[in-house]
């Protein structure tokens, strides 16, 4: 499968490897939209397990965005990873897997990564008016949106 995809995309697939028995590939953000559709339709990865992100503030391309996919017919998992800079957006996978809807909203909520073509991209776990993205590394563990806390809870601090 990897060989076939490599033949199709060439250098678009930067790395395809196995770590601790788990397959993953790092791809170029420009092909990820196509690639996810191909994985879903041609390679039968019909179940999108999870979408998540990791923040590396010291890197030029600060974020890893990951799709963890599973195929019922092959009983196989694969992780697709892209690297993007702060402010770059990612193509939404809602039209490929309906489950991507809430998962992408959570990534947006926690990291501030925007998904192009998402039908209703808004915060999911935090309140709508909240400022800041808590899972970024520069967000402190006891940091809060004090303004929001004061306006909505009427207290100085949420602690």
């Amino acid at each position, binding site marked *: 499968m990897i060989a076939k995809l490599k033949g199709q995309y060439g250098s678009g697939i930067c790395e395809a490897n196995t770590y601790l028995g*788990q397959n993953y590939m790092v791809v170029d953000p420009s092909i990820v939209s196509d690639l996810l559709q191909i994985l879903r339709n041609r390679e039968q990865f019909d179940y999108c*397990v*999870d979408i998540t992100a990791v923040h590396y503030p010291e890197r030029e391309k600060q974020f890893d965005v990951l799709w*963890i996919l599973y195929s*019922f017919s092959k009983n196989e*998992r694969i992780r697709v990873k892209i690297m993007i800079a702060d402010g770059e957006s990612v193509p939404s996978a809602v039209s490929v897997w*309906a489950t991507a809807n809430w998962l992408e909203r959570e990534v947006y909520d926690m990291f501030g990564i925007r998904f192009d073509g998402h039908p209703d991209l808004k915060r999911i*776990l935090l309140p709508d008016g909240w400022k800041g993205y*808590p*899972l970024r590394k520069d967000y402190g563990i006891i940091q809060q949106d004090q303004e929001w806390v004061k306006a909505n809870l009427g207290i100085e601090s949420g602690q």
Partner: protein
Amino acid sequence: MTDRTMFDLKPTDPKPADDKYLSHLELGEPDKTFLDTNELVINMGPQHPATHGVLRVILKLDGEKVLGTECVIGYLHRGVEKIAENRTYTMFNPYVDRMDYVAAVSNGLGYCEAVEKLLNIEAPPRAKYIRVILTELNRLASHQLWLGTHALDIGAMTPLFYTFRDREEILKIFEKYCGARLTTHAFRIGGCQYETYEGFERDVVKFLDFVPPKIDEYEELLTTNRIWLERTKNVGVISRADAIALGVTGPVLRASGVKWDLRKAQPYAAYSDFDFEVPIGANGDTYDRYTVRMEEMRQSLRIIRQAVEKIPEGPIMAKVPKVMKPPVGEIYHSIEAPKGELGYFIVSDGSTQPYRVRIRPPSFVNLQALDIMVRGALVADVIAVIGTLDIVLGEVDR
């Protein structure tokens, strides 16, 4: 669902209090809402006994018919994933118990196994068997709690008392084993902290003999009960294709006819040693999810019996470094929790603290299916569907 304005809940213009009645009289005719069929948007929750926690569902109704829903979640958000980044691997272990607090043992199993994989160690066979016994007991406890509350929501009060009575026996075993009933923190990275107590096997076997007639008792109350059938048959139907597209897992997926269980598909712990069936449903309705879970309880008992009979002697803890520094890398490990696939994606940067822990909660993903399951149904069915999805808000919000 996609139309944001559909659910905008704008309050009507506030009028001065003393002007209220007068202005109404001046209108000269009754309010238009009387006997017309305007769409109505109402709020269910977040404080509502049937939402199983602080879940708010905005319902768009036409009379009694549901046109659409939107879930508002996050009331219990504690930032578990952020906490993980600021704790060592060992220190974070008890936190995972607080997500799905009715199945804390499963959460701990998933986390410990994920870190073990990252460290490239394996728990000894005896520890794996103890893990299987406790996890399956916990699955049973979780399903019993689900059955009691779900039946109560639909109007059957008796099963609640029956299931809580029998669940107590499981919690007693947990308490004797590790001192806690709910947030057990039963496992450690590399195995188990505690050897089984004197008489553990006897207690478990006693429970295995005690509970099957009780499960028959629950079934006697419900399975052929006419009211139960009316309330659950063809309610909250989700097709096989929709279930897969929405990523639902666990009993909800199996009731839609997908024979998929991680314990069989990608066995972890010691599950490959045991013989058990994966029950599936045909229609994907609330009744099927009920029968699937009932059968799962019996299969859990089968697994526990085999595990108790075959439990090997030996150490319960692998050789684990005092200071855990997993090599740089990423791992995704998932287990079949009572609610579905519970996954941990852990990134290590080679230090003592995880760089990132992502938890893939089954309840969160399953809850997303609520909208498709209740469209066109009645308000009372929303209650039934929330119950049948078996969500725990502590896990949805993390």
